[in-house]
Structure formats: C-alpha cells, structure tokens
C-alpha cells in the first residue's frame, strides 16, 4: 500500500503489483483499488529498456544476430530466427535446405521450453510449487540440447544467423533430441492433466472476447484462447512450415484457463513438428557460401517486414537498409507489447485483487520484449 487518496474514503487506495513482486518480472502495474476491487489498472513498463533498436543501428547484421537473443529470455532462438529472416530477405539469401530444418527444430524446441516456463510461473502464481519445480526441471533437458548444439544453455549467441546457422549439428544431436523428447513426454502429460488448483484459480477469470482480442492486437495463444483460429506458421509460412503437418489448438472460452490449455496443447504439436523435421532432415551445407557478411550487407537496399509465430504470439522485425554496413532502422514488434499494456489494463479493470496474479500470468508475459 503506497498511498491513501484523501479525496476518497479510506477504502480507496493505490498500490503496485510489481516490480518487486515475486514472479511479476521487471514490470509493474499500478492498481487503483476500492476495497478488494480494482477500479483502474495502469501498466508501467520500462524497467528493462535497453534500446536494442538503436543499438542495432550501430552494429553489423552478424553482431546484431547475437544481440537479438537478448530481446527475450523465454525464446532467444526464435528471436534469432526472426532477425536472421529479416536480413536474409534484404540480402536475397538462398538459405540451404538443411539449415531451414535445423532452424525449425531449434525454434520448436525453444517453444516447448518456453511453454514449460509459462507452466512454471503460472504454478508460482497459484502457489502450486511442485508444478514450478517439475516444469523447470524438465526444461533443463532441453537446455542441455541447446548447450550441445549452440554452445549456450539459454542464450545461443546468434546460432541462427543470416544465411543459415553457424554450425552443423554435432554427431549425436539427433539421437539426443529424440531422447529428450521421450523424457519430456512425462511433463507434457503432467501439464495436460486437469488440476484442481488450476480450475479454481483460472476458470472464468479474465475473459477476453474474440472481438476485443483482435482490436487490441492480441496474437498467439492469447488470441487462440479466445476462439480465433490463426497461426503465422500456417497463414504466412516461413522456412519449411508449409511442408509440415500440425494442428492449431483453439479454445473458445477466452478465460485464463483456456489460454493456458492452448499453450499446453501446443507442446504436443511442437513435438510432432520436431519428429517430422528430424525424419526428413536433408544432408548438405548449413550456411550460404558468401562474401564477408559486411560486404554483402552494403549491397542491401530496401525495407522488409518479417513476422514469425513465437511461443507467445506474433514477433516481427521491420528493417530498413540503405547500403551502409549497418541497418538504417530496426523496429522490433514483441507479442507482449499488446498483451501487457492495453489487454492487461482492460482485463484487470473491475476484477477482485486475488485474481490479478492469475490474469497477469495467463497473458504469458515477458517484460523484456515490451521494453526492448
């Protein structure tokens, strides 16, 4: 409780949810309360602003691919991929087939481990500590695969780079990925079983209608949790997604529980994609044989807007090149920008304070890509 407003009676007050709240991340929401009811919520981002867009204007694309990991800790490899695709598009690179498959396998592994983190923070928010520990434990198996392939557990240091990927898969990587998929199958079942704690905290809480979701720019699991069938991988296919078979899980209720269910069902789809990609993995080069990347980028001239389906929604890069060795302007569109500011403010209005954590975490937040 930070202040009591004098103009109202003593039951009206303002308080902060975050940034020091356990699990809120580097983000805070100022809530105006009357008793236990939230009258108004105001999102307050900016605790993690690092100015990536400006930093990228001073660096070459290869350096930027390392920077692009850091946009969000939940799915660094997917951010690598969006950045690499934007540069590929500007430079007209023909990415080798094998590299495309490796990119997709890593992006989907990244999606699974990101959904595990989501499960973990949701458990944390509902006081279900076992869930947190189990999910983070199983996530570690995937981090071990990243460690083997990219050399970094969380941050791959630009493994997916313009023109392909930096290195071929190590010898035993395919075997290890299959073994890890086998292991995390337990976690997938654990996450998809009905749990009384989830039902009582999330059912019919924070309902977002389909029309509102579209108007406020919701994407990914949040939009699919409101009953709208859409997926960038299907509608605007990149890499090899148009060759793969997968379903798009959708739930109609629009509440916190249906958003969470969509996420957990996506884990199975990602596992399907990885097995298919591993089956068809072709031999060959993993990187376009090129001149020095800097020399190449000097030839790039124009602009591009690339969208990808990240684990949390639509992530996009707008890049302008003017024949310099660095991009003239980079704009990053993170999925949480719409989820954490307009949608969160809208959903928190009028709810009971006890529901704030459930709504907050059900929006699959990552303050890092709001602030960039």
């Amino acid at each position: 409780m930070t202040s009591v407003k004098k103009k109202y009676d003593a039951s009206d007050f303002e308080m902060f949810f975050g940034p020091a709240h356990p699990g809120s991340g580097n983000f805070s929401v100022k809530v105006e309360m009357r008793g236990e009811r939230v009258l108004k919520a105001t999102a307050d981002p900016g605790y993690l602003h690092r100015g990536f867009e400006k930093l990228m204007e001073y660096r070459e694309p290869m350096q930027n691919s390392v920077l692009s990991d850091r946009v969000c800790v939940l799915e660094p490899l997917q951010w690598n991929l969006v950045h690499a695709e934007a540069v590929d598009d500007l430079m007209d690179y023909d990415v080798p087939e094998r590299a495309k498959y490796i990119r997709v396998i890593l992006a989907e592994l990244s999606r699974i481990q990101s959904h595990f983190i989501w499960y973990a923070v949701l458990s944390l928010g509902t006081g279900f500590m076992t869930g947190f520990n189990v999910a983070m434990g199983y996530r570690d198996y995937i981090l071990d695969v990243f460690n083997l392939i990219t050399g970094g557990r969380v941050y791959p240091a630009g493994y997916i780079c313009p023109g392909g990927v930096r290195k071929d898969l190590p010898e035993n990587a395919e075997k290890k990925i299959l073994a890890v998929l086998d292991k995390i199958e337990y976690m997938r079942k654990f996450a998809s079983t009905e749990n009384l704690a989830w039902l009582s905290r999330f059912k019919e809480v924070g309902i977002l209608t389909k029309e509102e979701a579209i108007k406020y720019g919701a994407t990914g699991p949040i939009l699919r949790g409101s009953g709208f069938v859409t997926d960038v991988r299907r509608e605007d296919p990149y890499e090899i997604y148009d060759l793969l078979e997968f379903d798009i899980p959708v739930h109609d209720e629009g509440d916190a529980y249906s958003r969470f269910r969509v996420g957990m069902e996506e884990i199975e789809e990602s596992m399907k994609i990885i097995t298919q990609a591993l089956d068809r993995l072709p031999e060959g080069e993993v990187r376009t044989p090129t001149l020095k990347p800097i020399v190449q980028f000097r030839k790039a001239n124009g602009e591009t807007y690339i969208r990808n389906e990240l684990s949390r929604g639509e992530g996009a890069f707008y890049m302008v090149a003017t024949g310099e060795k660095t991009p003239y302007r980079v704009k990053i569109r993170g999925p949480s920008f719409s989820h954490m500011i307009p949608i969160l403010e809208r959903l928190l209005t009028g709810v009971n304070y006890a529901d704030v954590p459930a709504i907050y975490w059900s929006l699959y937040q990552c303050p890092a890509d709001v602030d960039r």
Partner: protein
Amino acid sequence: MAAIEQEKTDLVEVLSSELDASITLKKERRMWVEIDSKKIVDVCLKALQLGFEHLSTISAVDWLEEGRFELVYHLWSYKYRTSLNIKTKIDRNKPSISSINSIWDTYAETCERECHELFGINFEGNSNLTPLFLEDWQGPPPFLKDFNWREYTLKEHYKEENPREQVYFEVKK
C-alpha cells in the same frame, strides 16, 4: 488455394481503387502503399472495413537528410492472409499526424505513445502520450538520428566533475 490467389490479384486492384492509392505487391503476401499523411485515418478505416483487422505495429523512421519522418502502419488481414504496410511521411520540424485511436483503440494509442517518446512525433487526438520506457528523461527524443547517445552518456555520466559520478572518484580518508 487457386481461388485465394485469384482473390489476391483482385484485392490489389480493389484496394488501389478503394484507397485511391497505388498498391504494390512487392513479395508474396506483402503489399506496400504510400499515402498522404492527411488521409491516414480514412485509409486505415477503409482497410479495416476491407478485412485488415490486425494492427501489427507502427514504426517510425527518421530520414534526417530528407528532413522528414516516415511512419509505417503494418496491418494484417486474417481473411486474405496478406499484410498491408501503409507508409506516410511527415515534416521533421513539426511532426504531427492524426491519431488512429478511433480504429484500434488503446492498442493504437500505445504504439503511438512509443513513437512519441522515442521520436517526438505528436499524435493529434491521442490524449495519453505519457512516456512508456524512460523515466525522468530530460534530453531530446533518443531515437533521432542526430542524437548521439555515445557522446551524451560520456558527457552526462562518465566525467569526474559530474556530481552523479563523484562518488566513484572519492578517496576515503
């Protein structure tokens, strides 16, 4: 699938006549159009009515030599599976454009808040232009091309005379 492709070629023509601007299909599923900044609200509203429901984001580009700001509105149509990127240029000295918050509500407002904070662009009709990221920032909008943050930080933060830095240079007696 062929029907959708046919629809897309028609779409370029329909959009061009409806929006009264020439639309170019640069790549598959990527349409670009340049319009006059005064028409932005009308064009966005028309685009929404034609099925471009999703506002992806608004990007601002600072063309320093030309002396103009460029704003790019990235829209996506779930129906036609096509993106429409609307570009418009405004004067750099008095950057001002109408807000599209009547169409995409608080999401458009939030995107505009970002452009206002980082580039200093004014959006008429947007009552909420409070800063998003920077706290107690007194300097110029930081994403402008003529703002050199390297010089700025050196001058403001890493000199011994700077009161903020003195604590690092004090010698304990």
